[in-house]
């Protein structure tokens, strides 16, 4: 069972990033009948989304966010001990995108850097890894970069996904906490590989390098199965996490859910009996950006931050894999939250 509590580290800064180009689904979509578009927008909730040009990849979005973080924290690049890059839309099949970000940020050759190939559940997993690395001793500073460009792998003729996805990146700066007096962080991680086909890009990997049908280079989603997975797994994940981390729902300031689809998220909120005021939504403005939607919602979700105490957040990621997980963390008042647009 992958449930653990670890000594807290400090979140020093979180910066999200999106491409400058903002696309309005209602006024700019020409590929579908306006009535159909209206219906999809109402249900999925995505009014606008930011779309990366062909020249912008996950590394570009995350490096822009990381540069802002390093600058605002006055961290010298050589002070970063490790970089974790979470993405399923890497710049290249190899090398790891972490190595590209390492180069662009001018990090030291004593810095560990590696990729994590997870999608919508990636942020809790990466925080778990970073927290273990920092609590294990030796490392002082870790950067978690999480970026996706799903508009590049969506089938533009499939209305189920064409109007849903947006692109985003993020950088989270974590530091070892010397006194370790804060609330321990909790992690609850799950996988069900039997649902591997429910969200898949079949072509382009080494099992099917050059598919005959170019649509196999785009994501295919079994919406009914994904919905079924979500309503079955997410409420029980939240319930199990709150119990395991001795944190009643009332003690959580915000439940930061992966922004998958407004209809599904609202259904989850009802099912989990969590007041909607505790679930920030950013999907209307940014679309479903995959795993980076969690840090994006932390910076852009309008969180009310008291000056005298840390916010207690339950971060919940779920999706492709199938993979899902939660992270219970604290966000102190001094944590820098920022957001950049990448031209």
């Amino acid at each position, binding site marked *: 069972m992958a449930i653990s509590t670890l000594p807290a580290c400090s979140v020093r800064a979180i910066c999200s990033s999106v491409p400058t180009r903002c696309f309005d689904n209602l006024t700019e979509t020409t590929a579908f009948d306006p009535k159909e578009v209206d219906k999809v927008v109402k249900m999925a909730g995505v009014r606008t989304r930011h779309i990366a040009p062909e020249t912008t990849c996950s590394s570009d979005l995350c490096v822009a966010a990381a540069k802002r973080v390093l600058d605002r924290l006055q961290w010298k690049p050589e002070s970063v001990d490790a970089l974790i890059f979470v993405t399923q839309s890497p710049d290249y099949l190899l090398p790891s995108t972490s190595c590209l970000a390492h180069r662009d940020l001018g990090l030291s050759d004593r810095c560990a850097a590696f990729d994590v190939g997870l999608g919508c559940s990636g942020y809790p997993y990466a925080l778990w890894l970073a927290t273990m690395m920092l609590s294990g001793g030796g490392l002082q500073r870790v950067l978690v970069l999480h970026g996706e460009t799903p508009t590049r792998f969506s089938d533009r003729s499939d209305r189920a996904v064409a109007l849903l996805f947006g692109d985003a990146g993020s950088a989270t700066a974590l530091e070892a906490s010397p006194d370790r007096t804060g609330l321990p962080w909790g992690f609850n991680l799950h996988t069900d590989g039997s649902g591997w086909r429910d969200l898949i890009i079949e072509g382009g990997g080494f099992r099917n390098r050059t598919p005959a049908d170019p649509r196999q280079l785009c994501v295919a989603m079994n*919406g009914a*199965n994904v919905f079924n997975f979500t309503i*079955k797994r997410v409420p029980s994940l939240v319930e199990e996490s709150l119990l395991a981390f001795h944190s009643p729902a009332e003690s959580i300031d915000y439940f930061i859910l992966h922004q998958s689809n407004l*209809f599904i998220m609202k259904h989850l909120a009802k099912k989990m009996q969590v007041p909607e005021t505790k679930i920030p939504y950013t999907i209307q403005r940014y679309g479903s950006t995959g795993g980076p939607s969690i840090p994006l919602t932390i910076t852009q979700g309008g969180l009310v931050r008291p000056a005298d105490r840390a916010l207690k957040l339950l971060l919940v990621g779920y999706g492709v894999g199938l993979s899902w997980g939660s992270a219970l963390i604290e966000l102190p008042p001094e944590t820098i939250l920022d957001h950049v647009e990448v031209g």
Partner: protein
Amino acid sequence: MTQEEALKWFADLFGLPASSITPETTRDKILTWDSLGVLTLMASLDETFNIVTDDASMRAMQSVGDVLNLLRKHGKLT
């Protein structure tokens, strides 16, 4: 729930007058019973009846009567 109440629930869900559907009404006659309609139906089955369905059983439902049979199978229809 009676069959009449179930038909009203179904009609409301798909934005139809209750008088326009019967158990024999097939999926192809209900324009809103498309892929988005399937998700709406799944959500309502879960929320209203606590019935969680999967893709295979949703695909197998080709008429209003099939939905009523699902409710019956779960003891939700008298």
